């Protein structure tokens, strides 16, 4: 059943009713409404407006977007694509350095390095090694000859060396103060998740043991990845480190897996080296 409002709307052709042709039901009111006048801007006003507006043609961001903390996060997010290359390059430097360094190390030390590079990968490796190797448990124990604090700080130092210091070195070449602020916020959002992720994995392993801790931390990282994917740009707003965290995880997971594959490929040779020196 049609309501009065619907009937009314359908019976009146509003597009035909205007001030110039005010007839019929609304004639009285439209004639009065015609008094609601307003001045026209002059040619000079329009020229001045154009002069003021054209300055903004080369700006990609409005001034209002940079207001407040949210503005800073938005700015950082918008610059992500530009700086992504830089972060991927530094990540590759770490990986290449890692592969080179591990070529002369024992497995226990390699696990330590992996823990520094990718907690997710090493969590999986803990589980795999514990379940499939006779000496799994012993290996895990040996890998923790170094204290958790030592491993934790190694990871922090790696991050600072290859990301933060390089970032700071680049800073003087960035011309605008706003760009520098954005760049610094990105550096922080890059480094904080790395440090937090390493600490979290270590805590899990220390508190729950290698098997449970490995499973727990691996599950948590997978959930974090999935959640970030679902959150999209809101994830960036809620936690500016989340998007950087994803890139960090993906890049390091891929390259760390490559290292793992290489390790297993040369497993026998490594065992020989370990036994016979």
């Amino acid at each position, binding site marked *: 059943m049609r309501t009065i409002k619907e009937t009314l709307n359908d019976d009146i052709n509003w*597009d035909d009713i205007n001030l110039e042709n005010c007839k019929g039901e*609304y004639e009285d009111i439209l004639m009065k*409404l015609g*008094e609601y006048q307003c001045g026209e801007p002059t040619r000079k006003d329009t020229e001045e407006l154009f002069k003021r*507006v054209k300055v903004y043609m080369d700006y990609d961001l409005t001034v209002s977007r940079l207001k407040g903390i949210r503005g800073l996060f938005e700015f950082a997010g918008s610059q992500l694509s530009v700086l992504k290359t830089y972060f991927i390059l530094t990540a590759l430097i770490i990986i290449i350095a890692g592969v080179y360094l591990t070529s002369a190390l024992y497995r226990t030390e390699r696990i330590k390095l992996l823990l520094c590079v990718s907690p997710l990968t090493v969590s999986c490796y803990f589980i795999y090694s514990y379940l499939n190797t006779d000496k799994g448990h012993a290996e895990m124990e040996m890998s923790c000859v170094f204290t958790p604090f030592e491993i934790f700080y190694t990871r922090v130092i790696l991050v600072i060396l290859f990301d933060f210091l390089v970032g700071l070195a680049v800073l003087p070449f960035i011309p605008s103060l706003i760009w520098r602020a954005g760049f610094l916020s990105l550096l922080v959002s890059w480094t904080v998740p790395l440090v937090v992720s390493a600490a979290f994995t270590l805590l899990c392993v220390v508190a729950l043991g290698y098997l449970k801790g490995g499973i727990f931390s691996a599950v948590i990282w997978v959930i974090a990845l999935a959640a970030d994917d679902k959150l999209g740009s809101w994830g960036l707003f809620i936690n500016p480190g989340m998007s950087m965290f994803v890139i960090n995880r993906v890049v390091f997971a891929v390259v760390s897996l490559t290292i793992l594959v290489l390790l297993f490929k040369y497993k026998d040779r490594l065992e020989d080296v370990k036994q016979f020196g």
Partner: protein
Amino acid sequence: MIITDEELLERIKKKDESALELVVNRYHAPLNAYVYRMTRDYYMTEDIVQETMIRVCTKISTYKYPKSAKCWIFKIATNIMRDKFKDKYVKYNILDIGNESVVKGIDSSSHQPPVCDIIEKQETRNEVIKAVLALPQSFREVIILKFFNGLKICEIAEITDVPEGTVKSRLYYGLEKLRSGRWGEDYKRNIK
């Protein structure tokens, strides 16, 4: 050959200054009229129109061709105005006054009518201004866009982000509200 507004916006995307100049020339007066009728404050109008044009430049990447350029630009202006109207100062000071004396270029004809006519006309106009400003913002938007900017119902619906049926009912109730207002009553009394 006349270049459409949509094509001009596409050219602005490629940083074409002449296209921007054309858009400013075409939309300055309509936007000015729309915003001024909504706010009745000259300085605020200037501010909002400038902000609208700046956003046309800075947010041009969000415009999707061949969507109506007119709707897109008016929608920007509407959103800026809605933000401004949230300000209590604007709500209780500027919108309540409706200072006609600051309007530029109004009644600029060289012929001067008798003083009593001017006063009478001014009084009527003030009544109309008060009645329109007394309308709720959503009603005022559709009435001004429809009767002064000459937009179609579908365009108004797109600009104000409401269904066409809502635009129609707002037009109807808006006009009824004006009719039931003080100057509407005066008008009815006079014609009787």
